[in-house]
């Protein structure tokens, strides 16, 4: 009996598997259950993808963006505002998965881990509906939407002193009160349910030079005194990197302002893939930056495994680089704020029956060292003074960078314009991308100018 009885300990293996699975699950349950609950297919909270019993959604000044939920509820009176805020608020069918009425599902119900979604009175949200106050500003959204016109693109605006996301506009868009017939393969409606500001990924082109510059300032000690020569073309083995013009001799500041590809290719090669990757990842590339229950799409850089001409292209925003617009706005915000970005957030507060609960998340993202941030601010302001012109920014001091990203094939380049405003009363950072829009500074810069003007007015 002794020999056999010892072998019962084989059961410990099965017990270990059980305990391991249980522990794993309980941890997931504790951490993720509120996200699971907000799944649009949850019949307890949603009907047809839209939250039942939800309250109203307001912008930061209290303008109503959406109200009620009987028969899907209603939206703001102005069609322009409806179209502009569609992706942030959500449509009536829940097709826009990142709409506030979908992602904040757990806040709009009585959910807590103890009682689940039903309060002890048996209902999912008590007798009072929960209202959501978002950080976006309807007027800034309207201006961004109008500036984009009938082009596809995104505008993200971020308050770098507080972390509020002031504007997340994505086009193409539509009027949720009168949704059109949208067929899957119609190019006009390509990605219409996607919020390009929070979830889009585009080749960054020259705006990535901001990151390359940060790496150069961090790791190349004499970069500001160096002299570069641009002959219009820089050869790396059998490949070459070209500039649209021959820039002649320039220093680092000038190279950024004229966006010299040849100089930046050299800098990228001198830095090496590892250092470039490290700086990029500190600035949030390859990681998820959350703005509430969701995160921005992950911007990607893979410089580590690139060398030669591929590394050079990565350093000037091509190769496999991908940029999320909202993330770019946060990067500019970090630069404006001494290297540290306040955590971005979309939900200002919830209110139910007179009780309000803040949605803000405290904390910061440490993206650049303060010395590097200060130098970058100088360079970005120099760009505006000497290249883009400060006229379009309503008299505000602005630092910015444009980008024209090649997309391959016979498609037009993406136009990018990203920057920040240096002004106590208007501490905003912005990123604009016009898909296949053409030249960065003219096309996207024009949109940015209108958006900044609207910001000044809205935050005054």
């Amino acid at each position: 009996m002794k020999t056999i009885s010892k072998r019962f300990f084989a059961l410990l293996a099965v017990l270990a598997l059980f305990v391991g699975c249980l522990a794993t699950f309980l941890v997931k349950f504790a951490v993720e259950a509120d996200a699971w609950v907000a799944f649009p297919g949850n019949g307890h909270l949603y009907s047809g993808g839209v939250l039942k019993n939800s309250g109203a959604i307001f912008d930061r000044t209290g303008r109503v963006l959406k109200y009620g939920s009987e028969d899907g509820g209603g939206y703001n009176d102005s069609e322009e505002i409806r179209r502009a805020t569609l992706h942030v608020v959500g449509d009536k069918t829940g097709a826009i998965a990142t709409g506030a009425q979908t992602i904040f599902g757990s806040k709009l119900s009585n959910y807590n881990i103890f009682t689940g979604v039903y309060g002890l009175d048996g209902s999912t949200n008590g007798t009072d509906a929960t209202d959501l106050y978002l950080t976006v500003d309807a007027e800034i959204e309207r201006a961004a939407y109008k500036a984009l016109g009938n082009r596809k693109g995104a505008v993200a605006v971020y308050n770098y002193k507080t972390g509020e996301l002031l504007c997340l506009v994505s086009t193409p868009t539509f009027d949720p009160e009168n949704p059109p017939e949208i067929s899957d393969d119609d190019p006009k409606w390509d990605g219409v349910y996607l919020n390009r500001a929070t979830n889009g990924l585009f080749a960054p082109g020259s705006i990535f030079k901001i990151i390359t510059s940060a790496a150069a300032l961090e790791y190349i000690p004499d970069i500001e005194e160096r002299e570069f020569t641009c002959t219009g073309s820089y050869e790396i083995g059998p490949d070459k990197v070209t500039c649209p013009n021959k820039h002649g001799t320039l220093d680092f500041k000038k190279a950024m302002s004229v966006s010299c590809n040849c100089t930046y290719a050299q800098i990228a090669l001198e830095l090496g893939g590892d250092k470039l990757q490290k700086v990029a990842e500190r600035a949030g590339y390859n990681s998820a930056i959350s703005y509430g229950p969701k995160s921005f799409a992950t911007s990607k850089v893979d410089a580590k495994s690139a060398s030669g001409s591929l590394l050079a292209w990565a350093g000037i925003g091509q190769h496999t680089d991908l940029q999320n617009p909202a993330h770019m706005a946060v990067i500019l915000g970090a630069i404006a704020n001494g290297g540290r970005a306040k955590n971005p957030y979309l939900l200002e507060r919830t209110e139910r029956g007179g009780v309000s609960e803040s949605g803000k998340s405290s904390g910061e993202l440490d993206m650049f060292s303060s010395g590097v941030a200060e130098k970058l601010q100088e360079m970005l302001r120099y760009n505006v003074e000497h290249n883009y012109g400060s006229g379009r920014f309503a008299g505000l001091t602005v630092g910015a960078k444009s980008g024209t990203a090649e997309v391959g094939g016979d498609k037009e380049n993406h136009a990018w314009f990203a920057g920040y405003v240096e002004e106590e009363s208007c501490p905003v950072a912005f990123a604009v991308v016009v898909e296949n829009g053409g030249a960065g500074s003219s096309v996207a810069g024009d949109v940015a100018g209108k958006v900044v003007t609207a910001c000044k007015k809205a935050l005054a």
Partner: protein
Amino acid sequence: MTDMILILTQVLRVLSPVFIGAVVIWCAVSLLREKKLDYIYATLVDEGSGICFPVRYLECSLGRSASCDILLELPTVSRVEAVLRHTKEGFRVFRLGKGEIAIGGKPVRASGLLKDGDTLTVGGLSFSFSINDRVETGVVAKRRGSFLMLLLLSVYELLTGYVAIAGVKEELVPSCAMAVLLLVLSQWGYFLYAKLKMHQIGLEFEIGAFTLCGIGICNLITAGGSGVITQMVAYLIGLVGYCVVLWFCGDTDRTTKYRYLASAAALVLFALNLALGSVRGGSKNWIVIGSFQFQPSELVKMLFIFAGAATLERLLSNRNLLLFLVFSTACIGSLFLMGDFGTAVIFFVTFMVIAYMRSGDIRAIALILAVAVLGALLIINFKPYIVNRFETWGHAFDFADDRGYQQSRTLVAVASGGLIGTGIGVGRLRYVVASTTDLVFGMVAEQWGMIVGVLILSFFAVLCCYAIKMRKGAKSAFYAITACASAALLLFQATLNTFGALDVLPFTGVTLPFISRGGSSMISSFALLAFIKTLSPSLYSKRRRVAHENDL
């Protein structure tokens, strides 16, 4: 009327964890406090030196090896000379070694009966054998509470049944109500039978199983109320089967005689399944006769364990695992051919446990595991259906509209329930395919809450802990193997079912014992539970009535 239902639903949300917690914790504490009776059944006294060798187990090995129960450190004795086992006729000596054994002077060839007062000659030494007749006076943990717990459980079942039936279509109300009443009555019927006829002391196993079955039936009612009568019938058959298995296992000789029959029956059932099987939900694991359908693999589980077990003398005399290996490959192979991969894995794990119990050879087990994993990887490569399952594993929400549909809805349901549940009858997982079978844990955790869900799972863990604790109480190596394998199978199956649905393990189509809808599953779960119960010292004890007539 409906107001009362609403209030009761909310009250039960808070009370369920308390009720179920009380029952499960009582089961656990009570079972784990049980001590193996440190009883000396007989003694062998060396006539030369006067040294006394106590016979502490109903099956003992005798020999020179340190692993023997009766250790005779003499060069004249083989490493394992013999096995002494208690049978219906009394103690029997089975000769295993090369040395000579004699009883009362007469040499023993294969085996011989040892009666009280006989002289046993082993390795040149003579021992006087005497059976211990004294009444058990050892300390037995007082086992109180069965009556109270069953009462508590009955009240709970009636309350939850009432609430669940409130949500059922009118025409199904009578059958559901009857099912609940039958449930409560049958449990008390068993209680009377066990206490009065069988004089059992503790009913923790049964009450634990009743709790789970009760939740299962109530859950089935909340899913619409159809099929409840079939489930009750299966439950009753299971309960009867439980008693039959317990009786059957009372005699070691009887059980060992039927081993080969069991193996043959298992193979025949699988052969029939392969030939006549119907596909239900992706696997061909069902036999349908008219309106009656069952899963042969569920019944084979019991036969498989039975076929794999062996008494100590058989184990020690024939260390050959080959036959069992071939038999197991045939079973597991059939399951693969039928497409029921979850059950195939369960059989494999059970096979590993039995193989280890029989051989103690970790290296051989590891080798078999390595070969099996390799084989599985090869097969996975060729079957896209399985590759899909593995792709989805851990990413249910990424595939929420197709392959991850069931798992994602289970997670959503479980999250919506929180710790105390949404309330009985308020669940929505019922609308998803296989909710009462593969996803049943999700349904229960959604409506009863995660606390109750974890309590249910811990019952299976308690069974394994109990088996480990009472390992020395097995009447024979045969029962040790059946008990250990059954405990392993039940816990592993519960783990695979639950955590597959919750996307912690790959999703497979296996049931949750006692709770899932499925007659064959219910019946086989009770049979396996009976195997574990055979470890209990309060069973089969001749003197129990005398010693414990004051306890109830």
